[in-house]
């Protein structure tokens, strides 16, 4: 170790000591300078950035969901509004002990076992900050009891807010749709933090979905100072939300509700159109889900009940239900015949059917000699068989389309199945077969390839009644519809036939019980199980094989104000099932009190109004399902 030739003395060690001390001192000074520089860098150069980080630590911005715009009817009556609400959500990411938290919530909020099961299932699939609704519409006492326990329940987010309310419940389900919590895909798409704000809902179906941008509004914000543990120290300020704009519809709220209720326990659809504008006054498909339950997050059991019902409450039958229109097309066919030179006074003898080649096409009766008006009144097939055979169906199909059959209307995003008005070209394209006279005969009585939805039937009768090419719409507009290219006297003959249907024909039992106001209409019966004798679809067979009953009508006869189409599924016949419904809601339009009185009597016989019946159905379904696991609902509930 010793370096030769280097003498170590006390003095040389002292010199080394001094030198090395200065070295260390210098190094220490350097570290000091580095520290000062580093600090200056952080606090001066990066000051803005760290100030922002410090603020985002300190200040917690909570969005206040905007109040949704009301949906109102033509008279300003709310079809959808908002009610003040105490609600609770779970934020999955912040919950530490899922089972424990749910148990506590169940106790505090006194939740029923099936609700608790729903919540558990929902929490299993839940991720991140997406709120899972626990309960809405809490009483103030429950809300307060929960708020007190919050420090022990991380992830539980109670909130005072507003929730969507549909005062007439199921009566507007298929018309308005419903609202719900945004799902993960919707959030991923826009990354809008509002979508994962507890209590915020977006339109999921129907008009609620289509008019989302208008109805949504702008969120408010609440700024609070919070500690690292999330405890709120003080409120720093609140910015109020801007409620969404109201949406006014052509719907008549009272009629809408009346129609829905009048459908009773039947399955079917009804559409009422304003003959002056084409505005839809009522748009009903029953039975229907209650949009209030969908908007609160429907329970699995309730969803199972809806999806297992053979009357398909989840299907909007007014636009997506397709039915052979049957004889309801006869007035339209009459106009087509007149258009092509048929003399309305020409009589055709009805011996109870029509012979085409070696086949005999049945009529409903043996009408003897009938002219056009009488053929409509009696719904004589033979007359129309003969006319169709003579003209060919292609000419009638053109008029059918002009009347709105087979048309897909532009109607606020309402999903439609527009059916078929066949002709020879269509048949060739579709089946590579030539049109036959037999096809014409079937088509002219609304059977065979012909298939329509109830909305189209309502449009057809509205155009027939008004003589103008009305377009159905839900949002009021002032456009005047163009006149149809048919002579008024031709239309008058169809009107007269339809008037006689009600005054003395197939729907004679459905005359309006009003002084001086008469209804014109046309019944229709559509076979469910193939063509042939009525007995195959008659009262003696199971419900789902029975014939559909249809009815199209307008009133008053002389000066049409309202046109409507009613389809009662498996109702056995138009005059028996559909016409009485139309009679009552037409009565409502002119004398609401009278109509309500007769409805009250009927509802008493059906076991209550819609809400009461749905509640008792659910109770019995729950009883049956006890001990059995219901299938989980898919995310998007209704079609």
């Amino acid at each position, binding site marked *: *170790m010793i370096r030769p030739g280097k003498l170590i003395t006390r003095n040389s*060690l002292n010199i*080394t*000591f001094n030198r090395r001390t200065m070295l260390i001192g210098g190094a220490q000074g350097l570290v000091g300078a580095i*520290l000062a520089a580093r600090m200056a860098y952080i606090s001066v150069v990066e*000051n803005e950035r*760290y100030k922002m980080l*410090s603020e985002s630590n300190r200040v917690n911005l909570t969005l206040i969901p905007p109040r949704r715009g009301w949906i109102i009817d033509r008279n300003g009556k709310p079809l959808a509004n908002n009610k003040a609400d105490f609600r609770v959500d779970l934020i999955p990411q912040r919950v530490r002990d899922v089972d424990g938290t749910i148990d506590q919530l169940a106790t505090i909020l006194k939740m029923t076992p099936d609700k608790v099961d729903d919540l558990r299932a929902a929490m299993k699939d839940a991720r991140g900050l997406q709120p899972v609704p626990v309960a809405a519409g809490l009483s103030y006492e429950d809300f307060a009891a929960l708020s007190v326990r919050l420090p022990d329940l991380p992830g539980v987010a109670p909130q005072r807010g507003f929730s969507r309310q549909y005062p007439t419940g199921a009566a507007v389900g298929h018309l308005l749709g419903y609202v719900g919590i945004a799902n993960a895909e919707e959030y991923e798409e826009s990354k809008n933090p509002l979508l994962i704000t507890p209590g915020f809902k977006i339109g999921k179906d129907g008009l609620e979905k289509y008019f989302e941008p208008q109805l949504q509004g702008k969120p408010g914000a609440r700024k609070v100072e919070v500690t*690292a*543990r999330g405890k709120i120290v003080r409120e720093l300020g609140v910015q109020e939300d801007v409620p969404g704009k109201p949406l006014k519809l052509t719907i008549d709220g009272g009629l809408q509700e009346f129609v829905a209720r009048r459908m009773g326990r039947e399955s079917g659809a009804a559409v009422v159109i304003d003959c002056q504008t084409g505005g839809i006054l009522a748009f009903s498909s029953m039975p229907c889900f209650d949009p209030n339950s969908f908007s609160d997050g429907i329970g699995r059991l309730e969803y199972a009940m809806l999806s297992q019902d053979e009357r398909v409450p989840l299907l909007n039958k007014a636009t997506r239900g397709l039915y052979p229109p049957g004889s309801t097309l006869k007035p339209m066919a009459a106009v087509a015949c007149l258009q092509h030179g048929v003399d309305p006074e020409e009589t055709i003898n009805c011996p109870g059917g029509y012979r085409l080649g070696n086949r005999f096409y049945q009529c409903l009766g043996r009408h003897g000699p009938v002219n056009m008006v009488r053929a409509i009144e009696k719904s004589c097939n033979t007359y129309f068989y003969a006319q169709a055979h003579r003209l060919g169906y292609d000419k009638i199909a053109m008029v059918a389309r002009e009347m709105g059959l087979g048309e897909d209307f532009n109607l606020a995003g309402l999903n439609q199945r527009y059916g078929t008005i066949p002709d020879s070209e269509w048949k060739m394209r579709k089946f590579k077969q030539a049109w036959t006279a037999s096809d014409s005969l079937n088509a002219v009585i609304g059977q065979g390839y012909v298939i329509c939805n109830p909305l189209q039937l309502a449009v057809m009768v509205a155009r027939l009644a008004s003589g103008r090419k009305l377009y159905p719409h839900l949002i009021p507009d002032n456009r005047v519809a163009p006149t149809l290219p048919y002579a008024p006297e031709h239309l008058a003959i169809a009107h007269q036939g339809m008037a006689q249907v009600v005054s003395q024909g197939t729907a004679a039992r459905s005359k309006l019980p009003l002084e001086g106001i008469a209804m014109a209409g046309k019944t229709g019966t559509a076979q469910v199980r193939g063509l042939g004798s009525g007995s195959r679809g008659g009262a003696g067979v199971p419900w789902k094989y029975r014939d559909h009953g249809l009815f199209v009508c307008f009133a008053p006869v002389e000066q049409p104000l309202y046109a409507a189409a009613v389809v009662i599924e498996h109702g056995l016949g138009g005059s028996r099932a559909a016409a009485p419904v139309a009679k009552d809601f037409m009565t409502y339009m002119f004398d609401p009190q009278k109509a309500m009185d007769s409805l009250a009597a009927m509802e008493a016989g059906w076991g209550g109004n819609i809400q009461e019946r749905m509640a008792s159905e659910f109770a019995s379904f729950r009883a049956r399902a006890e001990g059995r696991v219901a299938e989980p609902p898919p995310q998007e509930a209704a079609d």
Partner: protein
Amino acid sequence: MLAFVPRPVAELPWQIIFITVAIAGFGVIVLYSAAGGSVSPWAGIHALRFVVFLAMALVIRLFSENFVKWGTFPAYAVFAVLLLLVELAGAVKGGSQRWIELGFIRLQPSEFMKPLVVLAIARFYEMLPIGQARSWSAIWPPLVLIGVPWFLVMTQPDLGTSIAVMTGGVTVMFLAGVPLRLFIGAGLAGAAFVPFAFFFLLKEYQQNRVLIFLDPESDPLGTGYHISQSKIAIGSGGIGGKGYLQGSQSHLDYLPEGHTDFVFATMAEEWGLIGGLFVIVMFALLLRWSTVVSLNAPSRFGKLAGGGLTMVIFFYIAINMLMVMGLAPVVGIPLPFLSYGGSSMMTIMICIGLLMGIERNTRQGGGGGRLLP
């Protein structure tokens, strides 16, 4: 000096007393704010402790150099044994233990080891014949004196203190004239040893701290949270700070350990760069004082001990401040006079007391002219 001031009072080392009072006083002010504007639980006790330990330092100051030299090796031996006992107690109980419960105080032997290793090695070099200052026999005994407590503290495990013990000891060796190339060689060997130490000697939580120091954003809610929040506190303070009692990072609990290891960040948030520079300047003055003391010391023991003790104090200051500014990993080392905590203040005050003693000895002995004012 004013004539009416009694000589013993006038002779007190007022310069260093003023510096420590200034820093510790500032510490009391910061801890008052850290408690949300309250004397309890920290500020009051901090002030009380400082007064007690300052008195202790002034008592240590009165020890003669011979007394200190006489007591060095026995004290070293006693605390080495205590360290071993702590280690054994920890092994018996399971888990790590760093202190011995004496009823009224928790005695942490590793704290005493920091000045004791310095004193023991200084004493050793003083006893070593001058001619052997650069020989093998000048190297291995200090290595043993450092190695034994280093190993015992390291396995506690207390990374910060073990490095502090080693740094103090090695500094004395350096100042004693051990050839420079040995330090360079050891430095290179140490660099090679780091990966080994990292993978085999450090516990997992220590490894994580190092990893997260290298990339704090990788774990913003875990260990990296400390560093991130500390930088946010310092950075958001700006030049003049947010104002006294206005620090949101510390008052809303975003800054962890805001009254102990991260007290500098608590201070910087409210006092800004100005407060930070004040603290840095006061520490610089303190270290300048102690460096001057060791340079002026007449005896070799005084010089070496003074230099080593200076390094021990520096080590605390530098590592802590590098840590809170995100330049060093999170090792539990408090900031002298500012951090709340008794044992570290005691260690620093023992060092200050010993340095005061060296200065007093210099003045009394009047030995070899003062190098610097």
